């Protein structure tokens, strides 16, 4: 039990995928203009990440490993991720058209979110078992959602600020992301 809690704390805060490992920066910068959109993106990513993490674990340990095809893991994982994303996109389109509009191009781009593939590959290198993989994927996604929402609310505030013209928009967002990452270093050394 304790190890699962530790995995969660580690992935959500200490080794946050966005602010500490710098994965998944594309949606982090792209969909963080509005808090609602960021939350939606986070939830969609949570779904995809957890599912693809489990799915890639299954593919790896039950299909690739027995046949000695570990060298094909990247292709296989991308295939699985793409399928899950496609499925999510259709489901979101049907169930919440507004969210679908809000997420726009970023929804299909979850496919190329490096955090998703990163989780799948890290599961392999860290020899996580089935449950650990699930928790790892879920924790990574929760951490992603958390910083997305926090960052988006910060950006909403910064947008209304008197930021010097050369720094308006993306530059100040990047600086803010950097400073956030600095703040997250405070968690350093807690869980390895």
């Amino acid at each position, binding site marked *: 039990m304790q190890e699962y809690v530790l995995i969660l704390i580690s992935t959500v805060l200490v080794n946050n995928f966005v602010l500490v490992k710098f994965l998944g920066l594309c949606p982090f910068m792209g969909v963080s203009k509005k808090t609602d959109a960021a939350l939606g993106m986070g939830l969609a990513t949570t779904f995809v990440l957890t599912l693809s993490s489990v799915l890639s674990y299954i593919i790896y340990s039950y299909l690739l490993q027995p046949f000695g095809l570990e060298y094909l893991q990247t292709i296989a994982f991308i295939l699985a991720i793409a399928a899950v994303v496609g499925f999510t996109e*259709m489901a979101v*389109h049907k169930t919440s058209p507004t969210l679908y*509009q809000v997420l726009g191009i970023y929804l299909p781009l979850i496919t190329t979110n490096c955090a998703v593939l990163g989780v799948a590959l890290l599961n392999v290198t860290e020899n996580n078992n089935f449950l650990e993989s699930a928790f790892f994927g879920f924790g990574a996604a929760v951490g992603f959602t958390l910083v997305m929402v926090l960052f988006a609310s910060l950006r909403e505030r910064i947008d209304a600020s008197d930021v010097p*013209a050369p720094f308006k928009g993306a530059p100040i967002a990047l600086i803010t992301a950097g400073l956030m990452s600095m703040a997250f270093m405070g968690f350093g050394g807690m869980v390895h």
Partner: protein
Amino acid sequence: MEGWFISITAAILIFVGLAIVFGLLLGYAAIRFKVEGNPMAEQIDKVLPQTQCGQCTFPGCKPYAEALAKGETEVNLCVPGGTDTMILISEITGLEPKEMENTEAEHKPKETAFIDEDVCIGCVLCIKACPVDAILGATKLMHTVIQSECTGCDKCAPVCPVDCIDMRPPSVSIDNWQWPEPKTKLESSLEITLKQNSNLLIKNQKGEIK
């Protein structure tokens, strides 16, 4: 030789299998989550100003919204909506925002049409041109504009043969008078500083320096 062959076959088989499984899954999803219609057009239509002026070259706001939803046209064609609407559209459609071509029309206060009733000959041309049926009148009788329903699209003015229609801003009364946005001392002192460097900087409405 044999191991090599088996591993290739296994790889092919596994990937074919995976492809079939995922294909079936997606196929099922496509049927299960089928979406009727295009909700995007509706959404775009909501942010358009509904003046029905046709300056976007479409016959009205809805056709423009539909064309946008299909991605067949540019986001910067709505002149009455201005940059604000353009940004909203680009956010909905995910298309790249584009500068407005006709910038002078922006921030133009909303005007409504007035018919000079002494000049009007009652030709009904403006009635036919009005996209929202806001002009009343009959043949050879004087016409008049229902002010509350005029969208200020300016479609009636050009068709008038005697030029009796002009566009006027609404008159200010106690009922519709608005408190102006306060000009803080910071902004006014900024303006002084900016005037000194006016050849370098352009100040926009909100006090940001461009």
